[in-house]
């Protein structure tokens, strides 16, 4: 077998995530707040009209990323299925973080998983929202006493909506989505 050149120095082919040591793995990530292009270009008076239209479009086509961690992921999948169809709200799960707007953190975030969660949050394009589903994602839930578990995902990424329950029923996740839609409608100015 020919001796393979080391794939490290080929930038394109090798990708080793530099997670760094313990402390900066768990550094929180701030929510970005740069402005959308239309808000910069359009004069002030027209912005409110365009804002409402854009906010209504964002509200009715929220694309979550299929990001299931633990038991809450099964209830999240259950919410997309026939009995409680989230597709009615225009919410269709999308595999890649690049094309999704909402990240549903459904399950226990352990300290080993924290850098991956942060990486995915940074990969999402800008107007992005986070739903922290279940007690584990909100404050560690039943596993909060074990020291390898992160006590809540809001320690590393900013969270918009907290859905209580362990696991929350599909109806309460839908209520979480409706609360997120109302939040989008309210703060349509700085949605960016």
């Amino acid at each position: 077998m020919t001796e393979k050149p080391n794939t490290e120095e080929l930038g394109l082919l090798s990708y080793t995530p530099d997670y760094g040591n313990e402390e900066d793995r768990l550094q929180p990530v701030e929510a970005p707040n740069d402005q959308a292009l239309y808000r910069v270009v359009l004069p002030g008076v027209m912005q409110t009209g365009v804002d409402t239209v854009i906010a209504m479009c964002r509200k009715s086509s929220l694309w979550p990323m299929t990001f299931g961690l633990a038991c809450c992921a099964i209830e999240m999948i259950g919410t997309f299925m026939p009995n409680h169809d989230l597709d009615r709200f225009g919410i269709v799960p999308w595999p890649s973080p690049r094309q999704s707007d909402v990240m549903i953190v459904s399950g226990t975030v352990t300290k080993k998983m924290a850098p991956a969660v942060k990486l995915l949050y940074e990969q999402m394009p800008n107007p992005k929202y986070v739903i922290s589903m279940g007690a584990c994602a909100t404050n560690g839930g039943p596993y909060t006493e074990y020291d390898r578990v992160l006590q809540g995902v809001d320690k590393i990424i900013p969270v918009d909506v907290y859905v209580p329950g362990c696991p929350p029923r599909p109806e309460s996740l839908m209520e979480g989505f409706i609360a997120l839609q109302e939040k989008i409608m309210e703060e349509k100015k700085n949605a960016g």
Partner: protein
Amino acid sequence: MTTWPESQGTSTSLETVDMTINVGPQHPATHGVFRMVLTVDGELVKDCEPYIGYLHRGLEKLTENADYRQAMGWWDRTDYLAGMCCEGAYVMAVEKLAGIEVPERAEYIRVLMMELSRINSHFMFLGAFGADVGSFGTSFTYGWRERERIYDLFEEVAGDRMFPTYFKVGGVTMDLPENFETRCRDILSSIRQGLEDFDGLLTGNEVFVERCRDLNPVTPEQAIAWGFTGPMLRATGLGWDIRKAEPYSIYERLNFDIPTGKQGDVFDRYWVRLSEMYQSARIVEQCLDEMPSGRVLNPDLPKTLRIDEGELYLPTEGTKGEYGVYLMAQGGTNAYRAKLRSPSFSNLSALRELVVGNYVADAIVILGSLDIVLGEVDK
């Protein structure tokens, strides 16, 4: 600009570089947080390095610092597709350790609930496996139609859908509702209807058979050496099931047979799980017919459960394989040491031997056919 490796010297052979693909913790086909790094030459997988531990939530450490009965909340969240199977295993282990008797009716109710959650978990497998092979969610929705009905039944009986904590040390928390018998029978008929749909959708499908038949056959010797148990072992032709080999609870009185595959390839694993569901439905029917009346909870339960010296290892037949509970008591109300023998942990440990030499698309299908649950693998 990215620099391509200029060819060294005059080697006429095409210089290829093995690419490492990181099938990362977040991937639609990894059923949760499991990461494997595939070293790929074109489409062929050269080497596979699985990484687990992204959902290590310290089940054993927490069980050591909580009362016997409190710890059940963590135990049924290990295999979160079949909550009642894990509850049953843990509760039976504690009762055998403490020497507590369980009334007849509670035994029948327990077996009935465990078999229903086995069907529930296998429906999730069929859904997820169909999506891995590529049928874009149609298999998911077919599987979920029955899952929701079984969840409604659990909710009616015990109040919660996934983790009802319906079992208790010494029996079952409350008796069945009156109309349970009729509702359970029509759910069984809808389950059988759902299984026919899956037979039509996947088993007869040309593309599905083309993708799964003859994909990494496993001999019984290999399976045993790698520690496979459950449907993975039965697919290789060795019909070993703990409900028959080391019967616990009332499984001796029930007659059901064990489906076994022929080659241990991915199609046999799928087929064994599909036909196991018919057997579980048969068991549920027998339990309904022979259900004795009487008390559901052992009357003289101690106020605080203290178990003096003793240890035990109780193997039970979980949905993915041998779900064993090891408990050691040194007096006091907390278990001194508790260990879960998780079937997905052992089935997953052989992933490198199963995957190397196949295509990338097949690596995902093989991982799907293992039917792993990360809550159980990482404990």
